[in-house]
């Protein structure tokens, strides 16, 4: 037997160790068949009466991700991944270059929102409403909202009319399905989300919109009525926009909006990344690229200042749809977000239809771990400061604030949304939550997060049909719909006790903080 050397890689160096109970195992082989990273295999056992044993591979490239598909499929409950607190993976795996992965930041899973409670509930001063039976106005603007004094109103005899066109504004549901591209997501995952979106609109009267992400748009969707629910994204790679433009003459309806993506909360300053493993033939077709790892540039090339970003990108995107479609811009939250928002608020052409802020807890399909864990800005304080900056100028609500990044991270999306709205958001975005509803098992404790490898065990972040076939579109879409209906009921359950029938945008007086530092940073009452 060869000597074991201390520097040999061992399973105890890996983040997950596979616990297999030989006495329970019936050797059905399902665990090994289900494992997408090939982390386990059978060997002839020297002891086993039935001659076989299951072993975990001590290989960096085949390290168990903890996804637990083996446990799910085991009829005997004989196998499970165990978190290994003493692993040395971050040290050893860098032998192959910088670490890449998907998911959310695991280091910065701080939950400012959980240090806030809806503290201003009083039947005496703020009579509560009935969440189930009263009528609530749960709508948020997407588009430039002009104050009444700026409306180009003209009196014609008895009638009031507009002397000039006003910017397009869509009043939509205050939760948007966030931008996850075709390519990052499997076709079935993307279609399940789009299907859920259409269902919510057409069967449940919830005007939820979905942002396409920047990976192109399905041609058939561009030419269908369902396009009205889609916000088209343009990022620095401009992937798929030629197809969008070529489809213009055949569009039956306008899209809901256009979102210019400048940056992403999970990896600010870093462009999009689609590993070659996921650039299948249909992705090559939709994006117009060969099979290779696709990097979007860190910046929109040709934009050199905030003013240019507003004038050039907003103008072009507005013009593409005849100034009928609101155009908004998404940036990673940053120390400078308030300066950017102030600049947008001065937009003299009324062509900026929304400021989307993405916090550090946002997810991604692929990023360098160094970016994911160590770059970015928490969302809550930056949102509050943007809102207050607008309020100081009497311009709050004119350029809607939409925020994302970690919304629903603990499964409580309605509470997160409500608190963010009280801090000044008009609406929120959810992304990771949606794929978790589809079956994603990734989390902020280092579980799975293999979105970048093409080996997604849930068939969500992969283009390999062997895995994509694991995902049932109808069941996935139904899970999203069910969650959204509960979200809607829960949002009312928070609105009603504070006595609001419409969204309490910026009503931070509704909140108290149970943490002094959070209270101070957000300008809230500290309560204990």
């Amino acid at each position, binding site marked *: 037997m060869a000597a074991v050397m201390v520097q040999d890689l061992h399973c105890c160096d890996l983040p997950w160790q596979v616990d297999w109970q030989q006495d329970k195992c019936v050797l059905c*082989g399902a665990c090994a*068949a289900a494992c997408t990273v090939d982390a386990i295999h059978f060997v002839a056992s020297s002891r086993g009466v039935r001659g076989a044993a299951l072993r975990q591979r001590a290989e960096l490239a085949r390290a168990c991700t903890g996804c637990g598909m083996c446990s799910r499929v085991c009829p005997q409950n004989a196998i499970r991944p165990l978190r290994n607190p003493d692993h040395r993976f971050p040290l050893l795996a860098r032998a192959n270059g910088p670490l890449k992965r998907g998911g959310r930041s695991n280091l910065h899973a701080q939950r400012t929102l959980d240090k806030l409670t809806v503290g201003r509930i009083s039947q005496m001063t703020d009579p509560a409403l009935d969440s189930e039976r009263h009528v609530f106005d749960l709508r948020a603007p997407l588009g430039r909202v002009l104050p009444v004094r700026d409306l180009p109103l003209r009196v014609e005899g008895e009638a009031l009319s507009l002397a000039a066109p006003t910017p397009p504004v869509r009043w939509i549901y205050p939760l948007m399905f966030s931008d996850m591209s075709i390519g990052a997501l499997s076709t079935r995952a993307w279609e399940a989300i789009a299907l859920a979106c259409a269902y919510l609109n057409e069967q449940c009267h919830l005007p939820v919109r979905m942002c396409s992400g920047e990976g192109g748009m399905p041609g058939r969707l561009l030419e269908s009525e369902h396009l009205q629910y889609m916000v088209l994204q343009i990022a620095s790679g401009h992937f798929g926009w030629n197809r969008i433009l070529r489809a213009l003459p055949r569009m039956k309806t306008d899209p809901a909006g256009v979102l210019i993506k400048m940056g992403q909360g999970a990896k600010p300053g870093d462009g999009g990344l689609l590993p070659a493993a996921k650039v299948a033939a249909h992705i090559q077709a939709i994006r117009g690229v060969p099979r290779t790892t696709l990097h979007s540039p860190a910046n929109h090339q040709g934009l050199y200042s905030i003013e240019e970003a507003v004038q050039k990108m907003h103008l072009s995107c507005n013009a593409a749809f005849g100034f009928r479609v609101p155009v908004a811009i998404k940036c990673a939250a940053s120390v400078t977000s308030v300066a950017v928002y102030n600049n947008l608020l001065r937009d003299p052409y009324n062509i900026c239809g929304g400021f989307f802020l993405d916090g550090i807890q946002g997810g991604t399909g692929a990023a360098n771990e160094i970016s994911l864990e160590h770059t970015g800005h928490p969302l809550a304080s930056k949102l509050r400061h943007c809102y207050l900056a607008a309020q100081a100028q009497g311009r709050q609500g004119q350029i809607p604030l939409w925020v994302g990044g970690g919304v629903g991270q603990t499964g409580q999306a309605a509470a997160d949304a409500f608190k963010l709205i009280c801090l000044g958001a008009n609406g929120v975005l959810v992304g990771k939550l949606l794929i978790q509803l589809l079956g994603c098992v990734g989390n902020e404790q280092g579980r799975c997060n293999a979105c970048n490898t093409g080996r997604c065990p849930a068939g969500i972040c992969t283009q390999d049909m*062997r895995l994509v076939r694991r995902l049932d579109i109808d069941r996935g879409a139904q899970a999203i719909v069910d969650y959204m209906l509960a979200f809607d009921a829960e949002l009312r359950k928070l609105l009603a006790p504070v006595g609001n029938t419409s969204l309490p945008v910026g009503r931070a007086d509704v909140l108290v903080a149970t943490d002094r530092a959070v209270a101070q940073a957000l300008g809230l009452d500290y309560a204990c």
Partner: protein
Amino acid sequence: MMHIDTLDGHRRLSTQELLRMVEVAVQQGETEFVIAASGQHDIGGPLWNRAGRELVFHVRNPGQRVGAMCLPGTTVLVDGPTPADAGWLNSGGRVIVRGDAGDTAGHCAAAGSIYIAGRAGTRTGSLMKHDPQFEEPSLWVLRTVGDFSFEFMGGGRAVVCGLGCADGASPLGARPCVGMVGGVVYVRGQVDMLPEDVRQSELEASDIAWLKPGLADFLAAVGRPELHAALSHWGQWRKITPRPFAEGGRTVGLDMAAFRRQAWVQGGIFGDVLEDDGRVVGLAALGEDRLRMPVWAGRDCRDCRLCLKSCPCKAIAREEDERVGQDSAKGIYALQAEKCQGCGLCAGLCPVGAWDMQELLGHD
């Protein structure tokens, strides 16, 4: 009969002073009061005569909650309008208002009758209920009621005659009957903005049989008997009732699969760029859905049959079983791919490495 004038020059009787005065008088046997009020609350109840005789209050200019908490045997006659909460929590009295009533008239009324000769304000009739131990309450309004009327109504009968209602306007105001779970609202005129969980229907014979004498009594009590004929065109009336509990619950739309077939892009939105037959497979899938497959390398096979015996899918066969009559290839095993899940037991157990596992995932 006791006359009380609540104003004496600039001196006004407080509500408390008035109510104490009335209570003492009732206890001493007084049964009829004429009260010139000046906004005092809660005139009329809950009071009762020890000998069971009727109590009657003639009131002018009352404050809120006239006839509130009224008990059986009490009649409150208001000559003129009243502010909010007339007949609040009425528990059996007869409250007659010969004028308009303010907001929440008849709120929580659970027995007795309330007659309003004019309009009533917002949230009129809200939370009316019927305790089966007692007679059901009724609330009659000659003209119209304000918004949010009959909210959360749980029982009893309300009648809104819609007299003088503007063309196109609803006699029940905006968003009536929200959260209504019991009772019935009769209304003359067109109603809109009703929630989904109540239904509107034509009157039935039993409804008319109840309305006819009730209307006569109501109109007589408020001094407008001449209107009886004009209000008795029963075809102009509707009744609103909550849907039975079993019919309610969460509105469920189309089944998702049916929605995808009927309302979604036919053939799927990616149908033009990707072939996807829609099959859904389990975690340990067979054949072309396997993630890995064993490949027969045949090295040094000793024909021990371990692979064949250990294969959980029975996907391995000896070649001579497949090709009857050819036994020259002794010890050679063949794989039936459509049965194989790619678990690798065969390769793992083979003492001589006759099977190689080949990765399929990521290799198109």
